[in-house]
């Protein structure tokens, strides 16, 4: 079935990585000094790779579009980072983390990659602590852990609700250290616009200096993309405003396959949309579902306030449908159930596109415990609520404050209103075991690649993967390629391939400036987002996807004839930056729908209405769809499917059930 080679080493699953590391060809220190590597992106995956490669002795250039590498969107991750340390002595192991990740991904990821991820997870925690990352600790001075969805052990390390920030600042400090030593050249406010290929190999990039508009050519013996996910194709998502697919998409157009683009994670607990002005969505951490009960009124179009709806007129639909897991079902299941209730007319709030997340019952429960600790017997309700609120405040205070700030409502008094939102993309550039794309010398790390999360990512696994790739995997695997490049001298950027790539980039910029149409870039982005959310969001159907493909093609034609980009290309021009990104999102959106249409099964974040059980649960088809869909870009905007068969030799494939 496979027509592409994932280069997985031979041997037992548990020894593949160790054996690989001991047998991979090395590059000697004097040769490393003359080998140049370009790293695009400075988030967890990019900054960690750039710093580590420089420590090893390579000459590194690192690029980011923000004003500082510390701004990358990894910084916004709240919950934590998984590692199979088994510090809690609760039976965790490399195998368990591996197993949970494969199962959580609904059996659509590669065994060898995921096992390696679980193996290096423990090194990440050691490295971060050594860098001075202040992870949460217990009174004994040792590291604390907490639980996250989809697991039965406590393996999540965290730093309050700011784990991503602390880990990124750790990677950033390692990167700045190398910059200070002159071993990394940092290019902030630069955007990659093209990959340069010479004799089939990636040999550099074309980048635009966002301040001056100057187009620059940069040579590298190899190029690494750690450029993040593409959730902003939906316009509204929890991604940062600048998060985009452009670097990955340009690589795709130069021959890098794009894998499983339709696998999108829609996170169940986000603050709902409040109006057409909305520019982004904000996540409320998954941890809230430990103490919040999710419900809607039993009556359709019930306009009463939450407090006026009596207990027996409330439908705790997750507890009703999934008695075993209740409010703690995985993200994909919780999101679909919320959509089902709202579509059926039971939604709450002005938009009717929200459900309640109610802390009252648990506040009262905590209050009773506190009262009893204080020696108060038979406490009245008011006392319970007062004491319980203090407990809730200590656990979730920063999240409650953020909710109050955004909505203007007090979540200690009224239940939160929440709704699912686009959060993470499991799909991305196809990579082999070495994290190399289908273009030799072009690597892809972190959320930008497709490799480890299958069709659904577990909480606290994104930070783990980004840092695993950058600190511990890529720096080894890239040696396999670079050891054959030691005799290649730096190629002059006057080479015709650079000239040609620069022309391609300039042509696009000039075309965008000269359309001088009537509609803003945001206008098109919002329309694209609407199509994607309606037809390629939480549930998908053949008719809807076919319609979406037609609509996106029409939108693309309209964009290229009617977009208005003010200003010029040789200055700081934020509209021009957005226009280039939206142009790529439109093409990606079409591919996502094509991929979703091809996958005639439901798995993880991909739910096809035609393929569900009688109870409305996702119905996988392991006989026909246990493959990675790797799409090749073809002239025009066309795509050809290549399949990488997924073999499960160490795990028994089973239907997920949370009943």
């Amino acid at each position, binding site marked *: 079935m496979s027509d592409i080679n994932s280069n997985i080493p031979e041997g037992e699953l548990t020894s593949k990585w160790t054996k690989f590391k001991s047998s991979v060809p090395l590059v000697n220190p004097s040769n490393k000094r003359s080998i140049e590597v370009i790293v695009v992106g400075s988030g967890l995956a990019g900054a960690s790779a750039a710093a580590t490669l420089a420590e090893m002795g390579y000459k590194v250039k690192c690029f980011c579009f923000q004003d500082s590498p510390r701004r990358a969107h990894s910084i916004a991750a709240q919950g934590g980072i998984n590692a199979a340390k088994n510090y809690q002595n609760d039976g965790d192991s490399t195998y368990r983390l591996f197993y949970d990740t494969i199962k959580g991904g609904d059996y659509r990821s590669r065994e060898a990659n995921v096992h390696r991820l679980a193996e290096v997870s423990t090194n990440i925690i050691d490295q971060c602590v050594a860098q001075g990352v202040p992870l949460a600790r217990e009174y004994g001075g040792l590291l604390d852990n907490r639980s996250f969805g989809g697991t039965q052990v406590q393996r999540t390390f965290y730093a309050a609700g700011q784990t991503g920030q602390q880990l990124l600042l750790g990677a950033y400090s390692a990167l700045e250290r190398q910059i200070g030593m002159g071993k990394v050249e940092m290019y902030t406010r630069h955007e990659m616009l093209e990959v340069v290929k010479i004799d089939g190999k990636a040999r550099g990039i074309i980048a635009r200096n966002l301040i001056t508009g100057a187009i620059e050519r940069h040579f590298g013996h190899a190029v690494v993309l750690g450029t993040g996910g593409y959730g902003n194709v939906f316009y509204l998502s929890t991604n940062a405003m600048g998060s985009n697919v452009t670097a990955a998409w340009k690589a795709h157009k130069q021959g890098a396959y794009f894998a499983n683009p339709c696998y999108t994670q829609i996170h169940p607990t986000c603050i709902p949309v*409040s109006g057409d002005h909305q520019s982004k969505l904000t996540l409320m951490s998954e941890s809230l579902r430990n103490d919040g009960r999710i419900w809607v009124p039993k009556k359709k179009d019930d306009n009463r306030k939450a407090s006026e709806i009596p207990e027996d007129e409330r439908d705790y639909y997750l507890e009703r449908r999934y008695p075993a897991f209740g409010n703690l079902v995985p993200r994909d299941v919780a999101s679909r159930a919320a959509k089902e209730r709202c579509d059926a007319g039971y939604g709450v709030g002005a938009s009717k596109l929200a459900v309640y997340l109610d802390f009252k019952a648990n506040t009262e429960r905590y209050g009773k415990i506190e009262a009893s600790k204080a020696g108060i017997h038979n406490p009245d309700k008011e006392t319970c609520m007062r004491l319980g609120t203090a407990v809730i405040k200590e656990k979730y205070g920063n999240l409650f404050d953020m909710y109050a700030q955004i909505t203007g409502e007090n979540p200690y008094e009224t239940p939160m209103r929440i709704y699912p939102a686009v959060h993470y993309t499991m799909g991305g550039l196809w990579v082999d075991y070495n994290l190399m794309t289908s273009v030799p010398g072009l690597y892809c790390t972190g959320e930008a690649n497709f490799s480890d999360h299958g069709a659904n990512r577990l909480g606290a696994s994104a930070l783990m993967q980004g840092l695993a790739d950058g600190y511990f995997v890529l720096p080894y695997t890239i040696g396999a390629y670079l050891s054959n490049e030691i005799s290649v001298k730096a190629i002059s950027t006057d080479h015709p391939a650079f000239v040609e790539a620069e022309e391609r980039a300039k042509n696009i910029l000039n075309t965008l400036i000269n359309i001088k149409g009537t509609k803003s870039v945001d206008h098109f982005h919002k329309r694209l987002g609407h199509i994607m959310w309606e037809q390629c969001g939480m549930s998908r159907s053949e008719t809807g996807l076919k319609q979406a493909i037609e609509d996106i093609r029409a939108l693309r034609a309209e964009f290229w004839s009617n977009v208005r980009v003010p200003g010029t290309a040789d200055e700081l021009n934020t509209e021009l930056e957005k226009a280039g990104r939206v142009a790529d999102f439109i093409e990606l959106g079409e591919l996502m729908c094509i991929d979703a249409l091809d996958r005639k099964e439901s798995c993880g974040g991909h739910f096809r209405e035609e393929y569900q059980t009688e109870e409305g649960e996702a119905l996988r088809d392991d006989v026909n769809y246990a493959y990675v869909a790797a799409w090749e870009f073809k002239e025009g905007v066309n795509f050809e499917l290549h399949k990488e068969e997924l073999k499960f030799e160490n795990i028994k494939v089973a239907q997920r059930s949370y009943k």
Partner: protein
Amino acid sequence: MSTGNMNLTLKVWRQKNNKTAGALVDYKLAEISPDMSFLEMFDVLNEQLINKGEEPVVFDHDCREGICGMCSMFINGRPHGPKDLVTTCQLHMRSFKDGDTIVVEPWRAAAFPVVKDLTVDRSAFDRVIAAGGFISVNTGNAQDANSLPIPKMQADAAFEAAACIGCGACVATCKNASAMLFVSAKISQLALLPQGQPERYRRVQSMVAQMDAEGFGNCTNTGACEAECPKGISLENIARMNRDFASAKFVSEETI
């Protein structure tokens, strides 16, 4: 459902680039919803400007959830606007009244030159970190994370200092344009942890030297930085940095 009923007058700093002079320009906005964030209000303004064929206002922003530190507007004389402990992106229009006039300027500091409109160049902060804001440990050199117990109080104190988002509000609000709150937060984080001890005195000297070289002013203890910091970084950090800087000459054989 998006339109609201607030009418506002904005006075926004417009400046083409760092070679030209800038000026405040007046804009009228109608039907602003109190549920919009301050930056979404700017999105509305920019959409109007684009539709009129004018150039939109350029401003830095990215995560819009108060953590990346990129947004940086000086609103009615205060960095990040009127509310305490909130970044511009998390400021909502319900904090203003119908009919208000709002003055929006960029950060003002010699070390933060204006790039365009409300966008400034804060790369001086990166150079200060590159001078010593790290622990020198290469990837792969770490021991087991739990082999070094750290008292919870100390770890929590280090975390509080590490919560700095590097936005530069402290510099913008300081009459001396001092960066001491930013610099001392990083120095404190690492000085409070056992991992940070080997380079403690070397670090404080090189970071302070770089801070001075970037043209930031001195600290005269007015405390404006602490009052305006959206993350509540404490002035105690500056005291700790000064103590370490003074001790460095005595306890460290290494003077930089």
